[in-house]
């Protein structure tokens, strides 16, 4: 029973990190209907900035710089690449982000080289024991930050002008433009927010229980992709639910691989994708994705 609880708690905690990444996908998708395949490189960039800066300026300023830097990089990508492609279809724009990701990832990975870079976080390898369940402090922080970030964005989407503009643009770009919504600003804003979230996610992907940032860190972003789809690519709530679901599924598949032969041999790694296919078969728009609302 304790074992199950521990698996669940740890699954939720790593799921929270996936949720942060998935939220980045969702925000860009909501405002521009583009699946941002360059997200992994934003994540790597944010993590890299924290890793190289924390020694000189301390962890918290470095984290701020990482978040700001990744946000700026996101906005820059939007401004330099995507904005010039305004006429392209969403599919084309999604494809172009793959190219952006390749270029950025090669450069950052080259800088990281073969190193494993610690991020100098304050949590270290401290853990909390609750009734026999062990959980790393860093993971509790991740859970807290993810829930907080997602709540903030839910509220912002609902109540701020920025949120209304973003939702309007997501639904109908031409009409939003007719309302005086500045589409460029909306989509650059979305990219910046996605970058900031990616940097936060990078932080939690690279602190305990992992030793630090290396060039493979960005692969985690690929696990968040099914999380975003399972939740529904245009739903912020969905990002949270999808992320947690993936985290728990993975933890359970790993934890019980000894008991069930099916789970053995790396099943945990494909479980998110299997789950995604099942969800898509039942609900093509994902668990929380919006269907067209119409009377007809």
């Amino acid at each position: 029973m304790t074992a199950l609880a521990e698996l669940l708690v740890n699954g939720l905690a790593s799921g929270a990190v996936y949720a942060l990444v998935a939220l980045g996908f969702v925000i860009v998708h909501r405002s521009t209907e583009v699946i941002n395949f360059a997200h992994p490189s934003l994540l790597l960039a944010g993590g890299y900035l924290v890793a190289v800066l924390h020694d000189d300026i301390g962890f918290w300023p470095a984290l701020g710089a990482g978040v700001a830097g990744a946000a700026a990089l996101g906005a820059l990508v939007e401004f330099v690449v995507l904005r010039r492609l305004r006429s392209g279809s969403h599919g084309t724009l999604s494809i172009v982000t793959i190219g952006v990701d390749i270029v950025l990832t090669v450069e950052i990975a080259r800088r990281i080289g073969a190193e494993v870079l610690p991020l100098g976080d304050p949590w270290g390898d401290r853990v909390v024991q609750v009734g026999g369940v062990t959980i790393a402090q860093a993971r509790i922080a991740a859970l807290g930050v993810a829930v907080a970030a997602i709540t903030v964005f839910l509220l912002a989407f609902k109540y701020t002008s920025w949120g209304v503009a973003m939702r309007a643009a997501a639904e109908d770009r031409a009409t939003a433009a007719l309302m005086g919504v500045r589409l460029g600003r909306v989509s650059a804003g979305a990219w910046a927010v996605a970058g900031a979230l990616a940097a936060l996610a990078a932080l939690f992907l690279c602190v305990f229980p992992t030793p630090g940032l290396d060039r493979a860190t960005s692969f985690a972003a690929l696990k968040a992709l099914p999380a975003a789809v399972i939740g529904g690519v245009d739903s912020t709530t969905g990002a949270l639910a999808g992320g947690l679901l993936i985290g728990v599924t993975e933890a359970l598949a790993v934890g019980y691989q000894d008991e069930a032969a099916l789970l053995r041999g790396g099943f945990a790694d494909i479980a998110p994708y299997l789950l995604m296919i099942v969800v898509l078969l039942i609900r093509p728009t994902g668990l929380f994705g919006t269907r067209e609302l119409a009377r007809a």
Partner: protein
Amino acid sequence: MPDSIPPSGRRDPGPAGAGTLADPAAPAGVASPPPGGDGARPASRAGRGGWARAAAGLAAAAAVCAVPFYAEAFWLQAGLFAMAAAIGAIGLNLLTGVAGQLSMGHAFFLAVGAYTYVWLAAEPERAAGHTLHGLGWPPPLAAAVAVAAAGIAGGLFSPIAGRLRGASLGIATLALVFLGQHVLFRAEAVTGGVNGRAVPPMEILGLRLADSPEPPVVLGVPFGGLEMLWFPGAALLALAAWFARGVVYGRPGRALTTIRDHEIAAGAMGVPVARYRAGVFVVSSVYAGLAGVLLALVFQRAVPEYFGLALALDYLAMIVIGGLGSVGGAAAGAVFVSLLPQLLTRYGDAIPFVAQPGEEGLSPSEAARVLYGAAFVAVLLYLPRGLRGLLPRCAAPASRARAVRAGDAGDPPR
């Protein structure tokens, strides 16, 4: 009905829309040998232009035939890789470029083709500690069935594909790559697991297309496996390109473009949308299967590691760089993407910004990745029709006008 001369907001004025309905007499593209004589051309064109074209085609065919007599193994192999890639890319372009279904799972169907061939053609053997199954079929039969198997795999997936659009479809197909690789690693009895498995050489009419200790000498040149594979490879590519052009410029192509641009309108016009969507998925998988078989034959060993995400993205890059929706473009993109890293690695010493192995700086592989990623972005930004757009004669005003009209259907609901 709204004002109807103008095209709608939904049409993709960029790559896809303009690329698909270009002048049917446009050249097939730099890399694809002309599709077998003049069968694909409308009869009215068979005037003087027809002869000129036939002559150009013959020259190209002759040039292709001459390659194995001159080129060293490196170039033959690179060429064969490019041919296989071109076949796969043409198939993907039918699906993604023409029909607008984003697929990031092409690598999966390549793997189905490659491994089905290996399994059917191989004799049972023991290797690396496990027993490998094999049916020992004659290789040509095995290849044909492998290609069909890839098509069937596509058919099985098409119900899922039919339910999804755009990026969601892309991600679902991405899942295929991961699931497929998982199965390849597990199904050791068929695939050989991580170590992969030797690919039985093709045998046509008793002739083994493989290296042998005493290679047959043709006109003074010893013919190894690569030399011999060159000819069927080129023929298959020509056939694949010819058939794809028929699809693109014929009724199915128009139906698919209409579905891509206006699915609801297409349905209303009586186009059987679901059937076309499934059909193009199957056709594209068949192409992938064929490419997979050819790749396996060139590799001589099929290793699951190869059929991963990177390969799937490579194929997407090929069609984007070459030009969405165009057969010649896909082939050109395939040549570009598959040759670029090899050339940079080989001639890296002579290129100023590329560092030597083991030195600091941008290594050849990195330079290749950066160039390829940048080409990806630059093509979409500045060459919406891809490499193909660089060719003269492609931007005939008449065809553009047609493209505009075909894309029109007012302002569809979002």
